[in-house]
Each structure stands twice: as C-alpha cells, then as structure tokens.
C-alpha cells in the first residue's frame, strides 16, 4: 500500500532553533531518507517552504478567490511529506515514527486512495 506521511510542526518554534540543532536535524533527515530509499519504501518526499509563502485558492460561483496564507490557522503546520510504499499500516507507522520531526511535531499517516482500473 502507499501512504502519505505528512509532517506537521510548529513553524514559529522551528524558526527559532540554532544553527547547530538545525544542522543536526538536516543530517538526521538525510540519514532517514537514505534508509527508506535503501529499504524500497521511498516514493517521493519534499520539504515545504513555510506557510508565510502559501496562497490558498478557492473557486466559488465560477469566481476564483485567493487568500494569503494557509487553508487553516493551526498550531502546527504542514512542513513536508514523504510518499511511501509499505506492507500495511503497522509498517507505515513504524516508518513515520522514525521521521526526525516526529519527536517534536506530529506525523499524519494517510493511505493513498487507489482507483481500481
């Protein structure tokens, strides 16, 4: 099965961490990503720019509306994702728990909707 692992973290707090911590985090992410590539779980993954760069788009009555900022104001913001292939939810949860941000933020694990051909 495929799962999207969505990484939620408090941007404001993350912006405050010092360079050393941030470098350590990057190294941990690198190691984690390499490990899931090696195990064949990795499909895709990216880090997102902060929500200050976000634009939200809606179309209502044929008219497009754009707003500055994310879809919802929340305590933690979507900061990145991994798309993975895993045997089942237990395997996906096990991988999600190894994402470095799981220790400070939250990882939402969502199965990908696969359409039958």
């Amino acid at each position, binding site marked *: 099965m495929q799962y999207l692992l969505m990484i939620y973290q408090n941007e404001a707090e993350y912006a405050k961490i010092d360079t050393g911590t941030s470098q350590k985090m990057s190294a941990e992410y690198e190691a984690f990503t390499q490990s899931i590539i090696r195990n064949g779980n990795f499909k895709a993954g990216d880090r997102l720019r902060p929500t200050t760069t976000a634009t939200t788009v809606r179309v209502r009555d044929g008219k497009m509306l754009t707003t500055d900022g994310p879809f919802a104001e929340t305590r933690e913001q979507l900061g990145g994702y991994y798309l993975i292939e*895993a*045997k*089942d*939810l*237990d395997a996906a*949860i096990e991988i999600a728990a190894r994402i470095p941000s799981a220790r400070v933020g939250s990882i939402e694990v969502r*199965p990908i909707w696969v359409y*039958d051909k």
Partner: protein
Amino acid sequence: MTPGEIDKIFRDEAGRALATLIRLVGDFDLAEDALQDAFAVALERWAACEVPDNPRAWLVNVARHKAIDRVRRQAIFRGKQQVLLHEIELNAQTVDEPATMLDDDMLRLIFTCCHPAFAPEVRVALTLRTVCGLSTTQVARAFLVGEEAMAQRLVRAKQKIRLAGIPYEVPERDTLAPRLDGVLAVIYLVFTEGYVATEGADLMRPDLAAEAIRLGRLLDRLMPDRGGIKGLLALMLLHDARRAGRETAAGDIVLLEEQDRMLWDRGQIEEGLRLVEDALRVPGRPQPYAVQAAIAALHARAPSFEQTDWRQIAGLYEVLLRISPSPVIELNHAAALSMVDGPARALDLVDAISARGGLRGYELLPAVRADLLRRMGRKDEACEAYHAATAATQLEPLRRLYARRVREMDN
C-alpha cells in the same frame, strides 16, 4: 434443536468463526455478511435435523461459499473479482487446520480490534461486536449511545481496517508487549464499565463484566504464562466476586465496610487467588495488573473490613506507584494509608495531588476527600465535598450514596 439452543451455539462460535473467516476471505465486512448468511442457513437446517459435530467448521465452510457467492454477485469488483475468488479458494485448502492455527485467528482478530490506530471507545466497540459477538444494539446499549451512531462508528472502523491497511496479524515480537498492554486496557475498560458504570440508573452492568472476564479467560488460554493477562483476569474475578454484596435489592450502593462477606462468591475468589499467585510467579518485573490483583486478594481474604491488612495494601500501592505511577494510584494509596495512619495524613496527600492538578476532572477525588473529612469530623467541609462529588458524577446510585452520607452527618 430449539432456536434458543441454536442461538447459544451462534453466540459461542461467532467470534472464532469470524476470526477464521476474515483470514480466509481477507475482508471484515465480507466475512461478517457471509457469516450472517451461514447463520440463516443454520437456523433453518439445525431446527429440522441434527447439529453437525463441529458447528464452527460447518459455519465457516458454509460462510466461505456464501462469500464466494457474494463476490460473484458484486459486479462492481469485476476487475478484482477473479483475484479475490482465487484467493478465497486457495485459502480454503487450509480449512481443516490444526487448533493452533484457529487460536492464532482469534488472536489476530483481538489485536486488530484493539489496534492503536483506533480511538479507545472504538477499540472497545469493535471488540464487543466482533470478538464477543454482541449485536450492534447491545453494544450501543452498553455505551448508552444511539444504535445508529454505534452502527456508524462500527462501519467507519471496519472501513479504516480495509482502507488504511490495518494488518490482520498478531504483532511481531518487538512490538508485542505494548500492543498486548493495549489489548488488556480494552478488556479492563469493558470490565470497569461493568463494575461501576459511568452514568445511568444502575451501579453495575454485570453482562459487560462477564464479557470482560470471558475475554480475559480466552486471552489467558491463547497466550499462557503472561503475568499481565493472569493478573488482569485475577483482578476482574476478585472484584466481580463481590458483586452480590455491592448493592441492595433497591439498587443502592453497599460500601465495602458494610458488605455482608457471606454474599461474596467464594468459588470465584479461590480461582482469583490461584491466578494472582500464578501471575506473581511469572518471571520478570511485576505487572501492574498483578499487583492490583494482589491488593484485591487481600480484601477478598480479609475476614472483615477492620481486620483487613491495610498496611500491606498501602505497601502494594507504593509498589504500583513505582512501576506504573498515576494520580489515580496516588489517590488509592492515600485512601489505603488513611486506614493505617489515619485520615489527616491521607487528606494531606490528597490535597497535594489535587494541588498539582493531576486529577482535575477525576470524579472520585471529591468523594475520597469527603470521606476523609467526614471521618475527621469536619462536617461542613465534608458536606461541601459530598456536594462536589455529587455534581461530578452521572451515576444515580453514587448520588444517592453521597446524599445518604450527608444525611447521616446531620443526625
């Protein structure tokens, strides 16, 4: 055979038959529907003639064919149909499996229903519905929620199993311990709701307590020599053994200190005591349920409330505080200590716990305070605490108990 007798067989076999069917057909809903079909056939056939020697195998076999029929009828799955049919047929070659395989099916079902990806109330509902074979109506009644809401909850849970890929497996060795703790927590949740209901007119729901004990026995048989399981089963048996003494015919609470110990179920206490010893003998560090059961055992053994070994009970609570600390255990420890060192010392502890805010919203905190204040003769404060306790509970018999305490103090 009468419909009543047939119903009993269904009730006994439903969980295990379903457990095997889910593995064979690979889908919760399909397995449940097919089993219902098989029950319908059985009801017709068994009423007229003999019940087969192995009703479960018969049910599984008939249900498997019904599942194949259902898949054939469901044209929407056309693409997957051949694959699924092939799988069911392939799996069927192993229907006459050794008993251990069938036991594993039951464990798979239990671990799936108690999966941490479900909210606790969903775990309990799924377990009662599928493992215990209660009807949706019965499960809804157990939680005092509407039948429709409960049906929805169960449908969503089963959808999640399928769509999110919750495995139908007993967890691997390295994750087994925490997952087993989760299963025990579900069983204990069912039991406590049966022992003291959260709300409503009745203090107890013996049917829920009985289901929890049944689950505990089942798990103990499937996974022998585990201190946590044996401890939990012992704890439930010992608590439940006091049932007849715990309320009056009118449904009023009889406190431990007032209970007629002749009404306690001695047979069940004996069984509980044996299990506590087994649980404590299992190597490794003591399991919290086993220690709680040891406390219950001291109560069960005591000839009277006054002659209870309170010192040892307080000591066991201290052990519990070391191995699984929680504000609730602290509160229980304080209550036990009040029987050794007096209510004043206990009140200090209780107030310290509540000052830390650890028990905010825990409804028994004001009740414990009230009881200590009453014993210290601080009437006004006790009354106030009883009023707080009354406001904190949704359970009618508890409200009547607090009202009685207030009346007794006025006299």
